[in-house]
């Protein structure tokens, strides 16, 4: 092993200097990284899809047995095509999933799940007063969303998407959340 050891020593001294130099020379080229925002919303779209599976709405919130689950997106749509790609062709307990863009709070009434990006937070007060006593599950992006009365938040913390649930608000909406979902979530009581 003497040979390897000598080699290793050489790498550690001269080799280090050469590689460092090489790295500096190469530096001007731009790194082409995949947009982390795109990844973030790809993940959030899948969370929304999962919520459809792990939440039970009261039967009254559907017109009939085959009526679709409707996911609303408030205002500008940060998902691009990712959300429709995610839910396309999926059946949950015999129901398909439909997307519905919402411009004003009244539009949200027909939804089962409503995504409100941080950008749309100023509409929260108006939204909540319209949605009170309706079984519409609100999903936002920050801790502040929960504090304003939102039900589920998907904040990104240290490069991960966390799942936080405001349990009193969920219960007030008379929907059932599966314990599988709650177990992964950080619950605010």
């Amino acid at each position, binding site marked *: 092993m003497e040979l*390897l050891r000598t080699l290793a020593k050489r790498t550690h001294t001269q080799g280090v200097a050469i590689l460092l130099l090489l790295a500096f020379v190469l530096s001007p080229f731009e790194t082409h990284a995949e947009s982390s925002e795109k990844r973030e919303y790809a993940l959030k779209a899948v969370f929304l899809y999962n919520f459809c599976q792990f939440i039970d709405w009261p039967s009254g919130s559907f017109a009939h047995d085959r009526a679709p689950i409707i996911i609303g997106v408030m205002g500008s749509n940060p998902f691009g095509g990712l959300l429709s790609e995610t839910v396309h062709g999926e059946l949950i307990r015999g129901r398909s999933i439909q997307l519905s863009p919402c411009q004003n709070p009244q539009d949200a009434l027909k939804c089962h799940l409503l995504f409100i990006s941080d950008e749309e937070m100023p509409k929260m007060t108006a939204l909540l007063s319209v949605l009170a006593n309706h079984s519409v599950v609100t999903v936002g992006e920050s801790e502040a969303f929960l504090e304003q009365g939102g039900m589920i938040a998907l904040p990104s913390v240290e490069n991960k998407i966390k799942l936080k649930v405001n349990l009193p608000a969920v219960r007030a909406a008379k929907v059932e959340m599966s314990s599988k979902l709650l177990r992964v979530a950080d619950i605010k009581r």
Partner: protein
Amino acid sequence: MDWVRLQLQSPRRQRFQQSPRLWGIVLLTMLLAVISSAQEITDYRPEVLKRLPLEQLVDIEITSVSRHPESLQAAASAIDVITADDIRRYGAVNLPDALRLATGLHVAQYDGHSWAISSRGFNTTTSNKMQVLMDGRSLYTPLYAGVFWDVQHTFMPDIEQIEVIRGPGATLWGANAVTGVINIRTKDAEDTQGWLTQLGGGEDRGFAGLRYGGKIGDDTYYRIYATTLNRDSLTQELRGLDARDEYGMTQCGFKLDSHLNAEDTLTIQGDVYTGRFGQVNGDDVEARGGNALLRWSREISSDESFQLQFYYDRTQRLLPDVLEERRNTYDLEFQHAFELSKRQNIIWGLNARASSDEISNLGGALAFLPEKETLYLVSGFIQDEISVLPELLTVTLGSKFEYNSFSGFEYQPSGRFALTPTKNHTFWGAVSRAVRTPSRIDQDIFVPNPEFGPSTLVGNRRFESEVLIAYELGYRARLRPNLTTDLALFYHDYSNLRSQERIGATATPTEFGNGFAGETYGAELDIQWQPSRWWQIGAGYTWMQKFLRPEAGSSDRTGATIEGNDPDHILVLRSSFDLPWDLELDATFRYVDQLPQPATPAYTTLDLRLAWLPREDLEIAIVGRDLLDEAHPEYRGRTVSREIGRSVYLMVTWSF
């Protein structure tokens, strides 16, 4: 306390053998074959993400290896992460139990409260080549450079994850990170809000813990906890007598995280504990200690951060009629990570530590002389992660430079590369140098105590650091969204290993010297497969060979038997079912090959857990351990061996 018996091993020589050098060629051929069949899929496509269970969506992140977050898939070293969910689904009640889940770690219980834990060999109850940390605090003691596992505890549900890095991590983690690093991290106080209790027990054990997490104002979260763990004594092998090794440990502590503003976080945490551990002969060992840590971290931007940390750690241990040790450790650490250019991420840091002890020698068996000593340590490290070919080749170069008052100046460089031809395939390799610096036991132990008679083993202040040059190669692949494999190959070349050298022409007295050299090599394979949303299977296999020999001029007659007792093979298989009716069924099968010296037979065993989770805040589990036989030893002693018997316990976890 196996090290008390260090000098008693039989002077038998080990076989000397040369090792093959074909690793590189074999691996390269293999890797090329795999590359050509690699699939081009991106992890973030909806149809891929959709198939993952919720637990995985809230994804694992890793900070240890490069100290800035990096996905496990692309890391250029051998890592396994034990998540909070793994710990929960194993029903682990203490840290050594949880560590059994890590691929590549050999965990062997020696008696009711001592464990031998090491990766890549050199495992004894006083293993001295692992760096172990909990929340940034080093757990190994400069007394023997190992970890007193009996006093390492915390409230198990509050553990975020345990990262186990096999092989040297010395460039970042410093001396002692030779065969591996275990980094235990507890959750942020923000994630442990409210009350949670976990308690249970069975015929042979009882445990209880309670935690409360609260919030002060808008941005400060805290938790306090208390936990206690008691275990009955084991049985002596063959004789069937009570081993009198009861284990009792009680600990409480707190953690407070204050987000001062968007950039700054202040963390204050601390623990105090007391433990009592029975022995076959003599009175109980008594241990007490506490620690307090203060950390200020600042995220200047997404590419730049620094942190400043100070901790104080006090330990006290009474081994009746042998010694009493009191130790105070003060540690100050600074780290700064930033983006030098689009292609280069630098991380550097400084560390100063003083560890001051006072040892009262209480009996004739042995003595540490001088009775008081302080180890000073000053170190700095710098590491540059260079994106040589963006998205394809990353090279990481760095070194730690350290001065310590026992062995002087040490350098520990490493060079690593990660090649990622697609997002789902990573090839990595590394060459690193790591040292195990002298501890009190290496340089200051006298056996027996010279006040009681002439010592056959005397102190040696010229004892030098043990040196490792490690060569590693690895391949990690996500072959399908639900199937990952992780293979690591290593060749570790050691010199200056501890030996027992004659001082004169006669057999005694002897002293610890640096007369051994040798190598270990092996492979570690980890496979995780999720056939469906409700079923997860894992397999971890470890193979290792170790060859040590005296270097020219060495007069050692022990054959290095005190430098580890390692199995050639370890196999751990896990299966986790999510059943209907809110039930979970987990099975863990373990096979550990025989140990050479003291000879311990191979064993296979099965651990089961059946849990009922009727509500999201309640879990009732029944756990069976070591179910396949009546009892077996995991690590025999030189005179007395203990058997680990079949056991069953109930475990209730309730948050409110």
